[in-house]
C-alpha cells in the first residue's frame, strides 16, 4: 500500500469521529461538515509528504475547528455566533472515545431525504469521500453532486434533525433506512462492469466498511450481520462475474475457482451465527441464499431445494416482484421449467426487462426456442444497461 493510500484509509476512518466531535461541540451539522471536508483535504495534501501526526484525530479536529471559525467569521450575518465560537477553546487534545459513526448515519439517512441524497450525504459525511469522488462514482458532474449534498443538508436542518440517536421506538425503522442506503451504495458499485468504471468498485468496499462499522456497534442486530454477510458473499463473486471488455458472466458460467474464499468463509460464518441467534429478516435470508450458491461446486450441484425454501420464506417476510421472479427460477430448477413459468405468470409486474429475460431463459429451458427468442428480444430492448443488452443479445444468438 502506498503512503497516499494509507493516509486515505486513515482519513476515512477518522472522518465520522472528527465530525462527531465538532458537532458535539459546536452544533450546526452543515457548517461542521464543510469544515471537516476541508480538514480532510488539508491532510490529504500534507500527510503523505510531511508525515502523519502523532494524534491524527486531534490534528483533524484542531484544523477543522479553525476552519469552522474562519467560515463563521467570513459570514457577516453570523457575527454574533462568531463571537461564541471564537470564545470556545479549540480542542486539540483528545477527541472523545465514542464512535459517532452510527449517530451520523442516522442523521445522513434521515427519512426526509430522497435515497439519492441519503447516499451522497452518507458517502461524504460518514465515508469522508470528496464531492468530486462521489460525482465520479455516480457519473454525474461535480456541480450536480455538490448541489445534491447542499440541498440534503438544508433539508436536514429544516427537518430539525438533531445529532443524537433516534428515540428507542424509532430505532428499528431508522436502522432499516440506514441499511437500505448502504445496500444501495454497494449495488451501485457492484453492478459497475470492469474497464473504465473500475473505480466504482470503491463503492462496494466503502459500503462493506460502513456496514462493518455498524456491525461492530450493534453486534446483536441480525439484519446488520445479514447485510454484511450478503455483501461479502456477493462481492466474493466479483472476480468471476465479468469477462473480456466488461461482458457479464452469469452465475451458471462463472469460474468458481476465482471466487474469493476468504470473503465466502466470513460471510457464511456471519450468516450462520445470526440465523442461530437473531430474529429472521430479509437480509439474512438473502445472505443464506448467497451462502448456498457460494458453497455449491457448480450450478447443477447447487442445493436448489434449499434455495427454493429460502425464497419462499423471503417472499413471505418481504414480498416483492423480484423475489417472486427469483423463486420462479428456483422452482424451474427443482420442478422443471414449465412449473417455473407458471410462477412467472403470478408476478405482479406489468413490463420489466428482467421479467422478460427470466421468461426467455425458462422458455429456452423448456425447448420453446421460438418464444424464447421473442422474450430475449424484448428484454434486450427493455434494458438501459449496455452489458445486460450485450449479454441478452448473446443468449439470443446462441438459442
Amino acid at each position, binding site marked *: 500500500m502506498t503512503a497516499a493510500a494509507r493516509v486515505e484509509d486513515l482519513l476515512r476512518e477518522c472522518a465520522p469521529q472528527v465530525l462527531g466531535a465538532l458537532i458535539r461541540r459546536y452544533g450546526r451539522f452543515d457548517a461542521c461538515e464543510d469544515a471537516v471536508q476541508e480538514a480532510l483535504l488539508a491532510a490529504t495534501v500534507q500527510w503523505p509528504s510531511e508525515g502523519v501526526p502523532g494524534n491524527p484525530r486531534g490534528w483533524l479536529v484542531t484544523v477543522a475547528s479553525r476552519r469552522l471559525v474562519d467560515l463563521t467569521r467570513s459570514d457577516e450575518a453570523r457575527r454574533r455566533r462568531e463571537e461564541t465560537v471564537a470564545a470556545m477553546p479549540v480542542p486539540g487534545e483528545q477527541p472523545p472515545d465514542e464512535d459517532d459513526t452510527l449517530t451520523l448515519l442516522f442523521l445522513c439517512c434521515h427519512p426526509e431525504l*430522497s435515497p439519492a441524497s441519503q447516499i451522497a450525504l452518507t458517502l461524504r459525511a460518514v465515508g469522508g469521500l470528496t464531492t468530486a469522488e462521489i460525482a465520479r462514482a455516480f457519473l454525474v458532474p461535480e456541480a*450536480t453532486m455538490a448541489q445534491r449534498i447542499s440541498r440534503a443538508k438544508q433539508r436536514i436542518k429544516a427537518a430539525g434533525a438533531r445529532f443524537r440517536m433516534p428515540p428507542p421506538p424509532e430505532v428499528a425503522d431508522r436502522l432499516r433506512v440506514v441499511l437500505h442506503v448502504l445496500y444501495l451504495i454497494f449495488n451501485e458499485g457492484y453492478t459497475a*462492469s470492469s474497464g*473504465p*468504471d473500475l473505480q466504482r468498485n470503491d463503492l462496494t468496499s466503502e459500503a462493506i466498511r460502513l456496514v462493518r462499522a455498524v456491525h461492530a456497534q450493534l453486534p446483536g442486530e441480525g439484519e446488520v450481520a445479514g447485510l454484511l454477510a450478503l455483501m461479502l458473499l456477493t462481492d466474493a463473486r466479483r472476480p468471476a462475474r465479468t469477462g473480456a471488455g466488461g461482458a457479464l458472466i452469469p*452465475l451458471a458460467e462463472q469460474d468458481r475457482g476465482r471466487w474469493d474464499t476468504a470473503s465466502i468463509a466470513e460471510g457464511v460464518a456471519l450468516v450462520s451465527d445470526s440465523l442461530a441467534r437473531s430474529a429472521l429478516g430479509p437480509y439474512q435470508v438473502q445472505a443464506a441464499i448467497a451462502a448456498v450458491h457460494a458453497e455449491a461446486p457448480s450450478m447443477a450441484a447447487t442445493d436448489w431445494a434449499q434455495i427454493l425454501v429460502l425464497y419462499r420464506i423471503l417472499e413471505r417476510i418481504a414480498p416483492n416482484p423480484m423475489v417472486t421472479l427469483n423463486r420462479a427460477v428456483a422452482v424451474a430448477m427443482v420442478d422443471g421449467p414449465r412449473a417455473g413459468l407458471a410462477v412467472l405468470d403470478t408476478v405482479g409486474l406489468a413490463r420489466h426487462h428482467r421479467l422478460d429475460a427470466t421468461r426467455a431463459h425458462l422458455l429456452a429451458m423448456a425447448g420453446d426456442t421460438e418464444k424464447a427468442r421473442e422474450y430475449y428480444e424484448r428484454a434486450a430492448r427493455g434494458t438501459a*444497461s449496455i452489458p*445486460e443488452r450485450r*449479454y441478452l443479445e448473446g443468449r439470443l444468438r446462441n438459442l
Partner: protein
Amino acid sequence: MKYLLIMHMNPASWESLTEAERQAVMDGHGTFIETIRESGELISTEALGDPSESAVVRVRGGVPVVTDGPYLETKEYLGGYYLVDVENKDRACALAALIPDASIDGWGVEVRPVMFSAGMEM
C-alpha cells in the same frame, strides 16, 4: 437513472404564439432550470440552432459528403434537450411535464432513458 428530455418543436406552432406567450415559454425554461438545478438533478441542457443551419455528413467509400439541411424531412425537429439524473422514470416524466414546451399544441417532450455501463449478472 439518467434520462434525456427531448424537446420536439414545430416552427409553425412557435410562430402562432403571441409575443407574451413566447416570453412565458422562455421564462418557464428559466424557472424549470432553477428547479432542477436546485434539486441536484440537472446534468446539462442545450437549446439547438435552427435546422436550416444543419449539415449532414455521410462517408461513402471513405469519402465524406456534406449536404445542407436537417437529416429528417419532417415538420417537427429537435429544438433542445435536458439531461437529468433522477430517481426513476416517473420522476423524469413529472419533470418533462414542467417544461413549458409540453403545454404547447403540436409540441411534446420525449423522455428517453440513457444507456449505462452497469449491469446485473443474470
